[in-house]
């Protein structure tokens, strides 16, 4: 599956890079743009399952197993997004899952 993590600067944090881009836009005639904030997108390819899921033993039905797996993946992505991908002191993040076409 594919997961995207969007990381943005908090509103309270000045974004000098965005300001410079906004000024460049205004200078080149795009003066209807009044603010630019630069964000990052992390595109993650996810295969397999998190270690926290434990073993496959037991008699899970396939759909129960899949639901547990998805829950574990979401929890783990949420965790590392806040630990590494974003620094919560200056940034916020948002996670998006992409539908697989199969």
């Amino acid at each position: 599956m594919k997961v995207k993590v969007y990381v943005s600067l908090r509103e309270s944090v000045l974004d000098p890079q965005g300001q410079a881009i906004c000024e460049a836009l205004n200078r080149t005639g795009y003066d209807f743009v009044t603010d630019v904030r630069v964000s990052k997108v992390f595109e993650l390819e996810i295969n397999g399952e998190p270690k926290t899921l434990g073993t496959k033993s037991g008699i899970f039905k396939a759909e129960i197993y899949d639901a547990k797996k998805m829950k574990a993946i979401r929890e783990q992505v949420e965790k590392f997004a806040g630990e590494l991908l974003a620094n919560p002191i200056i940034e916020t993040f948002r996670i998006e899952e992409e539908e697989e076409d199969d």
Partner: protein
Amino acid sequence: MLKAAVVRFPGSNCDRDCFHVLQDVLGADTRFLWHKDHNKIKDLDLVVLPGGFSYGDYLRCGAIARFSPVMQEVIEFAERGGMVVGICNGFQILTEAQLLPGMLVRNRSLKFICKYINLRVENTKTQFTSKYNDGEVINIPIAHGEGNYTVEDDVWAEMQANSQVVFRYCSADGSVDAASNPNGSRDNVAGIVNKRGNVLGMMPHPERAAEPLMKTAHGYRFFESIKNVFA
């Protein structure tokens, strides 16, 4: 005698300068630590995280270094009360590791700034600054693109109440004003300590101005203050 170590990450580039000042100028027993090292910190008095571009400054400055094996032990060392200094990129690593409050973001001008600046010593009661005089103005270099100190208001209030701001950018006569703020740092912050007073981070480079050969030697007393703790 002071036992010190300088940590080398891939991309560190002030490691030899720090080593030289500690070993040759200060006379401390100094060694290097590699970012993958384990169990080499126990008997140390001081760990220095030097300047540079650890792990290419990928993601955010210091963000990857914070998860290196050696940093897990540096964090434990700091939590036990060991003295830790982060200079420039080292300061960024310490904020990423949350050993120090706040964050260092892109300079307001978006430019990498490399020049001598004036600093006012705001707190001489720390173990890192006891050899300076209150309010003294010192002249040492900065060299960074991301030194713009940012912190949330409630944390900032607490930092001020605890006198955690150690160095501020100032004019030659010691006034802390907007004109002498090189990078947009909150209230001209150039260096801070943690609440406990054993972890210090600063953007300027005392190791580049610590002996008579250099333009100034105003950074020497920073290292001398630390040595004095273990005299």
